[in-house]
Structures are given as C-alpha cells and as structure tokens.
C-alpha cells in the first residue's frame, strides 16, 4: 500500500532529498581536503563541491567560522526547502526533527545566561534549525517555572515539560537534567509519532530512535558516574524503549564505574560487537563508536524507499559532514602538518 501511495504526497521531497544526499562530500573529497594547506585552498576545494554556490563569493571574510556558517546555512536552506515541499504529515515529521536543535538551543541560552554571557552572542551560537520566535526571552527567566511560563509554553516543546517542572533556581545540574528529560520525552514522543505513521517509516525510525534511546542511556550513565544522581533519578531519565530496555537500563542505573558499563553492554548484541571491536576504554571511544554506528544506520536507511527515515538520516549525515568540516578546518588552523589532519580522517565520514 505504501508503495502505491507514498509518491502521491512525498515522492517529490524524497527525490529531492536523495539528490541532496548524492551531493554529500565523498571520501575522495575528504582526501583532497587533507592536502589543503590553507583556508584558501579549502575554500577553493569546497567551491567545487555542493557548497560551491553557498560560499558567497562576495565576501572577503575568510575565517573558519564564516566558512562553517556558510556550510550550515546551506544545510538549513536545503532543510527549509524540503520543509516547504512537504505535505502535512511529512511536514510534522520534519518539524519534530528540529526539536533536538531547539532543546540544545534552549539549554545553550539558559546555561549561557547563568554564566552571564551576552544574549546576542549566545544567539549567534544557536543552531538556526532550532530557532523560535521568543528564544531570546529565555534570558529573562530565573527558574524553570518561569522559563516555562514565559517562553516555552508557546513552543512545540511545551508538552515535553509536563511533570518535569520545578521552581528551583536554575543550576548546571538542573539544566542538564532538564535537557535529558526533554530528550527523553522527545524521543518517546517521536517514537509514538512514527509508529502512528506506521509502515516502513515506523520500522526504520524505530531502529534510529531505539539506538538514540540507548545512546542517551549510556551517555547519561557515563556522565553521571561521579555525581550524586541516584538510581531512580537515572531510571527516570531513560527512555521507555530501546534494546537496553528494561533490564539493561536497570543495570546501567546501578553501575559505579566504566568497566561495569562495558560489561553490561557486552550483553546486548549491537553494542557488544562494537565494544569488542574497539580496544580502547576511554569514554570518547564509546562516543565515537556510537556515532560511527549511527552513520551506518543512516546509510542503511537509504537502502529502503518510501519512508521518512531518510529525512532523519539525511539530517544526521549532514550534521556529521559539517562536524567533519569543522574538524578539518580547525586542524588546518592549528597547524599545517599533515599529521594533525590525519586525525580527523579516522573519523567516520561517508564515502557514499
């Protein structure tokens, strides 16, 4: 049924998206970038890729941040285009895809305000996909309740705040907990939305979201190792599904050190393989492995047709691409030796 009707509404955006995906930088692009010796070279090379038109020719601003901004703008432009072309259901899906950016932006501004940074500076750091009208007003709020009453009640995130409000003053800890709670509700909500759509979309997105849920569970566990967050608190931050749910999550909530985490993970198939494949035991390694695995999932999503998962995975791929560019560029700025650039080669980039 899906095959018969999908293209009715979503055929065009999907086709456009696949076109966008075809324009992602390839491994040969990356290897050429490694040979770049200056920002100018980099810019020249990027001008031959899909970023060609968006690196606006008329500016002599030649800084890393400017380049990255251009690339991000290009991504946002593509996304907006897709959003414009999307019909109701896909539009909703794409809107939900921007929620994580919103959450990040809120957290960024609130925590920035805690450290007395200027609001407009913070606004510049925000990801353009996660902007909403009254975002700047976040700076006014003093505590969670106020935050909600003043600003967030107008945003689509309002529903995620249900039951997670406290009138305590904002602190780092609270913000972090808020972020995780928001993410939890977001992932669960998204999961529900996708299963409502059903079909291949639900299938593909379930893989993504349960992976996301597990990743967050692991990250929360690792980050809270030294803190006084208790077991129940942690459990309340874990999502209600995913490969680790419920026993793995219960175990994770209990752990005290890093080794225990690896031990628990080795009991769950995708992660056990990943963990065993890498000998490293640092926390960054876990992160890296996870994002590598996610990119694999993204690639796989493109193998199937007639589902919305490709949109999500495209966003992820593009995000990673921009992260890669940031990596290359900062390595370029730090030193021009080939070695430092090589570090970023080992990052997962997609030779698609």
């Amino acid at each position, binding site marked *: 049924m899906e095959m018969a009707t999908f293209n009715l509404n979503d055929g065009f955006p999907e086709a456009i998206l696949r076109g966008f995906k075809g324009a992602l930088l390839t491994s040969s692009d990356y290897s050429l970038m490694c040979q*770049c010796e200056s920002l*100018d070279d980099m810019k*020249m*090379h990027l001008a031959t890729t899909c970023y060609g038109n968006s690196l606006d020719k008329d500016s*002599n601003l030649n800084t890393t941040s400017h380049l990255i901004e251009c690339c991000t703008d290009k991504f946002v432009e593509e996304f907006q285009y897709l959003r414009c072309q999307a019909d109701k259901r896909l539009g909703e899906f794409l809107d939900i895809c921007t929620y994580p950016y919103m959450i990040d932006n809120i957290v960024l501004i609130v925590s920035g305000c805690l450290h007395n940074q200027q*609001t407009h500076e913070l606004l510049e750091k925000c990801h353009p996909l996660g902007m909403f009208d009254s975002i700047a*007003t976040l700076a006014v709020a003093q505590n969670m309740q106020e935050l909600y*009453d003043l*600003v967030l009640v*107008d945003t689509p995130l309002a529903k995620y705040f249900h039951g997670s409000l406290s009138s305590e003053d904002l602190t780092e800890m609270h913000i972090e907990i808020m972020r995780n709670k928001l993410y939890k509700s977001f992932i669960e909500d998204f999961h529900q939305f996708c299963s409502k759509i059903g079909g291949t979309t639900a299938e593909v997105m379930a893989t993504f979201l349960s992976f996301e849920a597990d990743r967050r569970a692991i990250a929360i566990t690792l980050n809270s190792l030294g803190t006084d967050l208790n077991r129940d608190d942690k459990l309340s931050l874990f999502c209600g599904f995913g490969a680790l749910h419920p026993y793995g999550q219960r175990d994770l909530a209990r752990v005290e050190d890093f080794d225990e985490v690896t031990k628990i993970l080795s009991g769950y198939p995708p992660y056990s393989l990943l963990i065993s494949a890498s000998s490293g035991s640092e926390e960054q390694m876990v992160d890296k492995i996870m994002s590598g695995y996610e990119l694999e999932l993204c690639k796989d999503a493109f193998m199937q047709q007639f589902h919305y998962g490709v949109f999500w995975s495209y966003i992820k791929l593009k995000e990673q691409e921009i992260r890669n560019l940031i990596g290359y560029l900062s390595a370029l700025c730090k030193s021009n030796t080939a070695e430092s650039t090589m570090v970023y080669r080992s990052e997962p980039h997609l030779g698609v």
Partner: protein
Amino acid sequence: MAHFEGVNGGEESSSRLSGSPGHASTSLWRSEEMQFVQLVIPAEAAHDTVARLGHVGLMQFKDLNTDKSAFQRTYANQVKRCDEMQRKLRFLLDEMVKVGIADADAKLQAVTHALADPELLESSYELDELEVTLEELEKDLVSITTAASKLRKSESELVEFQLVLEKAGQFFEDAKRTGASLRGSGGSPREVELSGSHHADESIESPLMGSDFTHARQGAASGYPGLSSRLGFIAGLVPTAKLHQFERVAFRAMRGNVFLKSSPVGPVRDPALDEKVNKDVFVIFFSGDRSRSKMLKICDAFAANRYPLPEEPHRQAQMHSEVCTRLAELSSTSRAGDDQGRALMLRASHHWESWMAATMAEKATYHAMNKFSIDVTSKCLVAQGWIPSASRASIADALRYAAARSNAPVETIFSTVQASAGLRGGGGASDLRNPPTYFRTTKVITAFQGLVDAYGVARYREMNPTVFTIVTFPFLFAVMFGDVGHGLLMLMAGLYMVLNEKKMQKKKLNDIVEMAFGGRYLIVLMSVFSIYTGLLYNEMFSIPMTLFGPTKWVWSSDQDKYVMPAGAAPYAFGVDPIWHGTKTELTFLNSMKMKMSIVLGVIQMLLGVAVSCFNHLQKPTGPQTSERDTLSITCEFVPRLLFLTCTFGYLAILILVKWFTASKADLYLLMINMFLSPGANECGKNCPETDPLYGLGGLAGFLVFVAFCCVPWMLLPKPLIIRKRHALKSQGGHAYGILSAEEDSDGDDENGNAGGGEEDEYNFGEEMVHQMIHTIEYVLGSVSNTASYLRLWALSLAHSQLSSVFYEKCFVAAMETGSPVAIVIGFYVWAMATLGVLMVMESLSAFLHALRLHWVEYQNKFYVGDGYSFEPFAFQTLNTNET
C-alpha cells in the same frame, strides 16, 4: 526545445568566426578536419601567446594536469587574484546599480561586446596596476558607504524617535482628555480607574491609562513619590510581526500587571538591520523596578527599540522640534556623502566594462595555462589540443605575433602530434582517435544544427543530417500545419524577428521569446512551407480558395452526380475547392493525405539509407585519414536499400501509379496478397483486369523473395567476414602493420603495440549480437517507421478539422445571428482560438512530431551521433553571467 538556448548562445561567436577572413570554404556535410597539435611555449611568452589564442578562439586545450586538483595547479594563485578582482568589480557594479548610475544587464552586455572586441583587449591593462586601482576604489567606496550607513543609522533612529514622540504623545493626550472628561463628569479617580480597567480590552481609547497616569501624577504631586516611581513605562518601536508575541510575553512576565498601547506606523527603516520593516509604536506601563529590568530584557529579546519619552507634554514638544532640526542637518550631511560616492562611482563606471572584460580574459587565460604541463626547468610550457586543420595558418600567425610582442628569445614550437607518437598524460592514444566535432555554422544554419545536436553531436567526420534537415524539417512541419492563413501569421512573426534581429540581439529577452528568437530562420522557413502546403490543401483559415479559377466539375441532373465536362482540365493546383463541405470530403482528403504520408516517409527513409552509404564511403580512421568501408556497403547498405525498396518502396510506387493512372485497385489487398499469397493477381473487387495494377502477382512475389533474402544478407556476412579478416591478421602477426615513422625507442614501440592490441581485441559473440540487433531493428523498423509517418496525415487532419470547427462554430455561427455584438464576440473567440490553439499549441505539436520523425525515423538509418563538440578556448564565448 532546450537546444534553442544553446543555439542562440553559440550563434554570435560562430557567425563571427565564419565572418573572419582566411578560412577555407567549409562544408556542412562533414565536420571539419581536426589536428592534434602540441605547442612548446617559452615561459616568457606563455601568457601573451595564450591570450592571443583566446582572441583567435580556435584551439581546444587538453587538460594535461587532470591528476591535480584546482588549488594544486601552477597558476592557482593568479586565478585567485582574478577572482578577487572580479569580486571587487561586482561589488562596484552592485553599488552602482544601487545608486542608479548603471544598469546591471546593460553593463554585462557591454562586457560581452568588450570581450569580442580585439582592440580593447589589445590595449590590455597591466594586471597589477588594475589590482591596485580596484583595491583603492573598493577601500574608498567602503569607507564612503560605511560613513553613509552610520549616518543612515542615526537618521533612522531619529525618525523612529520622532514617530514615538508623535504617536506616544498622542496616546497620553487622548488618555488625558478622556480622563479629564470622565473626572469632569463627576467620577472619582478611583472609580474611573475601575471602570477603565473594565473596558481596557475593549477600546484603546479607554481611560485606564489616562486615569492611571493622572493618578500617579497626583500621587507624585501630593507627596507620594513612591507611587510615581512604581508606575513606569517604556516607549519604543517593535516590529509588527512580533507585536503580539511581545505583548503576550510581557503579559506573562508581569503576571498581567501590564498595559500596552500600540499603534502601527507602517514601514520604518530599522537602524540595526538597515532595511524597511513594518513597525508599531508601543507604550507599555508596568509597576516596580524589578519589572522594569525584566521589561528591558524582554524588549531586547524582541528587537524593540526603546526611546526616552519624557512625561511632560511640553518637553515632548520641545524634544520633537529638536529631533526635527537634527534630522534636517543629518539629511544634508548624508546628501553630501552620497554625492561624493556618486562621483567616485561615475568615474569607475566609465572603465567598468573594459576592466571586467580584461579580468575575465585574464582569468580564462590562467585557467587555460593551468592545463599545460610545465617543463621541469620551467623554461617552457607544453600545451596540447585540437585545432581545425583549416585554421592552422591563423594559429601559427597568432603564435608568431605573440612571441614577437613578448620579446621571447625563441618562438613557440608548433607541431602536429601523430597518432603513433607518445603522448603526455594518460589516455593519449584513445584521445587522439576521438577528435571533436566542429561545424562552422552561420546564423541561419545554427538553429537547424541545434535541432540535430539536441539529439546527439555528430561523430567526427560523420555525415551531418543537418544539410537535409534544413529542407525536410520545415517541409514535414508544413505537411502537418498546412494552411495559408496560419502560415502567413507565422511568417509575419518570423519576419519580424529576422528583420529586428540586431535590435533583439542586444536586448535581454525572456525565455520563451529567446527560444523563438533562436529559431527565427527556422520559423520563417516553416511558415513559407506552410503557405505552400496550405495552397496544396487549398485552405486559408480552413476556407477553400479559388485562386486558380472555379472548379470544372458541374452538376449533371441526369446522372445525379458531378461530372467533368469533356475537354476540361482538372483544377490547376492543389485540392479542388468543390470538395469543401461535401459528404465525401473527409474520405477523399484522408485517402490522399494518408498515401502522401507514406510516399513522403518512404522517400525520407530511402534518403537516410542513401546517406549511410556516404558514411561508409569515407569512414574516418583517424583525425586526417579515412577509408572506404566496402564491406559495410555491400553487406549493410545494399541489402538495406533493397529491403526497403522492395517492400515499402514498392507500396509507394503503387500509390503513385494509382494516382497517375486513376486505377481502382485496392492497395490493401495488393499488399496483403504480396505477403500472404504471393503470386495472386487480383487487385480488388472494383478492379477490372484491364486495370494497370492488375496482374502484378509475379512482380510482388519476386520482390518479397528479394526482401526475404536481404535479411540474412544483412545479418550474417559482415560479422563472419570480419572474423575471418581478424583471424588472418593474427596469423600474419603485425607484418602488415604500417611501420611507425619514428621508431626511436623500443619502449615507445611496445607501448604502441600494446595500445593497438587493445583496440583490435575482437569478440565475435559481441559483434554478432550487435549485428543481430541492428538487423532486427532495421527490419521491424521499416514497418513501424513507415507506419510512424502516418502521423503526418493524422496531425494534418487534426489541424484542418480544428480550424474548420473553430471557424464554423465561432465565426460563422456568430455571423448567422446577425447581431453585431455576437459577431464581435464570435470573431474575438475565433481569433483567440486561432492564435492560442492553432498557432501556438498546434504548431508546437507539429514541431514536435516533425522533430521526432527526423530524430527517430530518419536519423536512425545512418546517424551515430556519439561525438563531442569542439569547444575552443575563446574569449568571445566567456559567459558574463558566471562572473
């Protein structure tokens, strides 16, 4: 019809090229003979030489540095510098357009002309000097514009303040008046406030603010300073789009203890963004200092500009006048600044196009030089590329000239690379075997060549279908579009474009007009043919004409039918007008047009087969060499020709004979009998034995036999003979190979042989399958293609029927009513339908079908079309839009 765009682009340059003297007369039958040449250019003369070649515009450079990316190339730096200069020039142009002293399109056109003008580039600017000039210009301009924008910023701030003073002052005044009137009517301030708050949401004129305000003032006056400080207000402007959000957030933040009054002021220049934004003036009241700081933050968040509004009316008035005087001062200052910038830009504007042209040429030159390989000692550059053999002399001239100009100690070495010689860069040998295709077209022919190129660029030295297309395309179009009136309308449009060619070339046209303009000569030719076929069909807006006298048929009441009186000649030209409106008109026309379509189709297909013979006669084996492919002629061309002639050629002849002899034979039956019962002599029910088409059974049987023999003839001998030849060759080894002229090193020789071996690698199976496919395609194709030509009949029928329907149902029907209004309306509808449906849609569909008949039915008989076109390095063809 995308080809038209390309057509138009290429046209200017090509017409210019053909205009230049010293070229041998060139033929359109086959593409130009090309040579692969190598230039060894001394480093000092490199730039001048390449620039010179850019003027001549007849050499296509081969990229010898494909392995290097853009930024690794030798002249990447210079290219970057040119980019930077172009950026500055574009910046200048933008500024000029903003101020209104230049038109962007006109300037870009001027650049195109400047690029084409060799004089201008002859006096080329020194790049370094130009760079410095531009640098200074940009700096000056930037400083002027930043100063101007600063002025503008303070100006718009003042304007906003002025607006706030006016509008907000108005609020206070209104409120006070209402408050006073209420108080005057006896209510205590307390009551007023209560009633005011009650109505606050309903009307902006409500006295809440006034009463609050006066209340506060009273409190202040009566020694309660706390009261006035508690009730604060902020005045300013907020973008209209954000007003509601702003109000809502403020309301929430103050827990409802807030009152906001606003009034729209329309588009106002925002000081921060420097662009016009729709804004509202607002005054917001709240109480308490903490609220004030909160409000300030909210204002910042919403990009609401705040202004210090004094409370007292007289101070407001005073401030207002102050602001007004400062505004006047500012505007005179900024005008002076603008004048300065204008003068600067006017000066720059004179040179702009020549600067731009020089920079573009420079950039193109360095791009070309990036394709050269540089000798290790970097004393000289090696360039390779294709040139038309006929233009060798002019290129040699250009090289000598450039070397002399740049005072180089040695001249550029100019040599032709032979296929056997070793080549720099990978894939040299295969590159040499594939020269580009180059036709020198004139502006008339370009459109037709475009029609063919849109299908595929001809293979090197292949027979060019364009030659016949020039006539056949408009003719087949006209067969489908035959009407004198429509033809005349089209002719007018076409002639208009042709006559105003010069004017229209300069203008920038919109897409559709540009497409039509590119094909203007095609349109003229199509319309002329349409008039001709219209005369044949005897139709002018579907009305028959009696140009050649009245019909000779007369009604004979004895025989109850029309008869031709003895001695009368038939109607002199075209269809007899008497057919019009008769019951049998359609039957007659259908039969005629159908048969005509088949005859035309068979003729065109036979032409296609004949052209393939010329392809075999002179089959190119290298850039300059060709051979006669006897095998293909005997085993492909001859059986194909025979097959088509014996089947559908025979049908066409039968048709013609039937027409000329007034035979009554049933052609369907003849054709069916030809295949199903060979030898049968009868020719239909009404066909007497005296009929000229009676008794053709023997001939038909023979023809079918020949046609059947042709099939294996096409299929088998060619691949078998090729295999045999190949076997012989491999037995005999390389003994029969032509000895390479320069066998200086064994390594070279080995390379050559290896390359040759690869080329000759022969796969019989593959060859056989190919031959099978071709044979099947041809045999089936001759049936389906002939049927395909029936579209000529179908479209022609549709056209004449449509036009007669429009004429009768709109125009004639309206005339019959006799009312002038109905006639006017009827005429209008008919005219619109004729223009919209017949002239536009029908002509497009006829065009499309004519195109299809050429691409598929005609060209598949001989045309390979897998070449690539010659794209010389020429300044004239640089695209100004890409700058």
